[in-house]
């Protein structure tokens, strides 16, 4: 029985890694089409680096990811603190609203934001679909995830710690800054990391909220794939796979060291 489970696991892991390994191998393949390996080459990487548009898309992706993650982390952390610590009218409703970006399929999320921006443009005259609207869209789904992650961390904390700070004469913001925030920090960091990953990976919401000139790497990959299999995309994918593997491995070793 145990052997059967092990064999099954091996096959599933093969299934998970086969596509990725094929992409990596093809990025070094001389042949433009097909899977026959005709010779090793770095031509596709050279072509990729010589394409100034790719650098622009890369910078766009980073800009969107960092700005939106920063904003969403601040908004989400404050919201989580408010939801856990205070009672106020509409609290239940707000908690439900928080789940909408999590459960709604991203196509629906994308088109609903598109409708919002179209209406705003009609009534207010702005915003034009651009990197700004992409950032606004990303913040929207990120806020929900950050709030939920930070909230679950705050719920684990002992409220007596904050009471003690108040009893010792700390003001509201002092308690927040010196007690609540440091204790919630692992949750805030985890939420921010999740938000960053979601933004870097997002295609659908970006697709509906980006205008001309606001191309990110996922949009670029999509349009090149639509045009046909391209070795340059293999090279770009291999770089992205390598980078994500590096950061995940880094996080993995760091988290093990702490234990």
């Amino acid at each position, binding site marked *: *029985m145990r052997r059967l*489970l092990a064999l099954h696991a091996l096959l599933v892991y093969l299934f998970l890694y086969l596509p990725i390994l094929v992409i990596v191998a093809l990025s070094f393949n001389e042949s433009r089409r097909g899977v026959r390996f005709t010779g090793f080459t770095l031509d596709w990487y050279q072509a990729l680096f010589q394409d100034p548009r790719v650098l622009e898309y890369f910078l766009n992706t980073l800009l969107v990811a960092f700005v939106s993650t920063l904003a969403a982390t601040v908004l989400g952390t404050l919201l989580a603190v*408010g939801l856990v610590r205070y009672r106020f009218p509409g609290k239940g409703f707000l908690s439900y609203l928080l789940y909408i970006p999590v459960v709604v399929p991203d196509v*629906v999320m994308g088109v609903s934001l598109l*409708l919002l921006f179209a209406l705003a443009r009609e009534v207010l005259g702005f915003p034009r679909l651009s990197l700004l609207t992409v950032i606004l869209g990303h913040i929207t789904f990120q806020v929900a995830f950050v709030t939920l992650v930070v909230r679950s961390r705050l719920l684990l904390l002992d409220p007596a710690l904050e009471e003690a700070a108040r009893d010792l004469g700390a003001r509201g913001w002092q308690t927040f800054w010196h007690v609540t925030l440091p204790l919630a920090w692992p949750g805030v960091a985890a939420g921010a990391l999740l938000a960053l990953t979601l933004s870097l990976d997002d295609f659908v919401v970006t697709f509906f909220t980006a205008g001309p000139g606001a191309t990110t790497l996922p949009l670029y990959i999509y349009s090149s794939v639509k045009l046909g299999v391209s070795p340059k995309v293999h090279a770009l994918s291999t770089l992205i796979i390598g980078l*994500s593997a590096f950061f995940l491995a880094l996080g993995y070793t760091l988290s093990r060291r702490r234990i």
Partner: protein
Amino acid sequence: MNEAATPWQRAFRVLVTVGPGGLWLLVFVLLPTLLVLMASFLTRGPYGELTGPWGFHNYAKILHPVYLEAFAQSLLVGVLATVISALLGYPLAFYIARHPQRDLLLFLLLLPFLTNFLIRVYAWLVLLQREGLVNALLGAFGLGPLVLYPSFFAVLLATVYTFLPFFVLPVYASVERLDWQLLEAAHDLGARPVKAFLHAVLPQTYPGLFAGSVLVFIPAMGTFVVADLLGAGRVVLIGNLIQQQFGITRDWAFGAALSVFLMGFVLLSLYLYARLQGERGLKDLV
């Protein structure tokens, strides 16, 4: 206890913490949702704009066989992807949870998952195309070449590939909490292995099984990218219909109605999940 905060101070604190994020949710989540609902009752104007008259005509249009077929296909993809994920993921979760190197195995499970979603889908296009690896392997056995892409099969395969970790992780969490003494007790009482598993182990993993099913079913049903790239026009799901209405067809009103319909399916599956799992279950999902 120190002197309590005055009502004004308390209102101020709520305003500072909840205010910005709450306002954001109202403007960027609630308002757009209401706009979609509203647009679904409007009509497409001659230039693709939204105008009157109001009515249920967009919903009536969904009942046309062409659109109903897209819904049926989406449902099929959702259900099949969930079942296949269960067959692949359930035993895997047990294997990982009982392995001495389980941290490493979890890491290896998540690694492909963290590479870009589009790349993962694209990889299957490369594997399944006419000159791809799968056909090359088939050719080595004197079989094929088969037209694997574009096809329903390709869409299903890539959907499972994309969402499989969503199934494994909740089941893994259930297996980790499992009380193995129940299994021993069942054995001691003379239950055969299959019966012991069905009565002593399986029920304990229901929470993970249900959560995993919802987490695979909802995105599998709602995706348009996988069908767009691997179905290449032959497999049309609800997501693709919605994208078309907001793209080339430019019938936002009908697209909005389709979105509301899709949301209905999502809410229905969440409702069924909540009935099976109890209120707590919804929080376990996230």
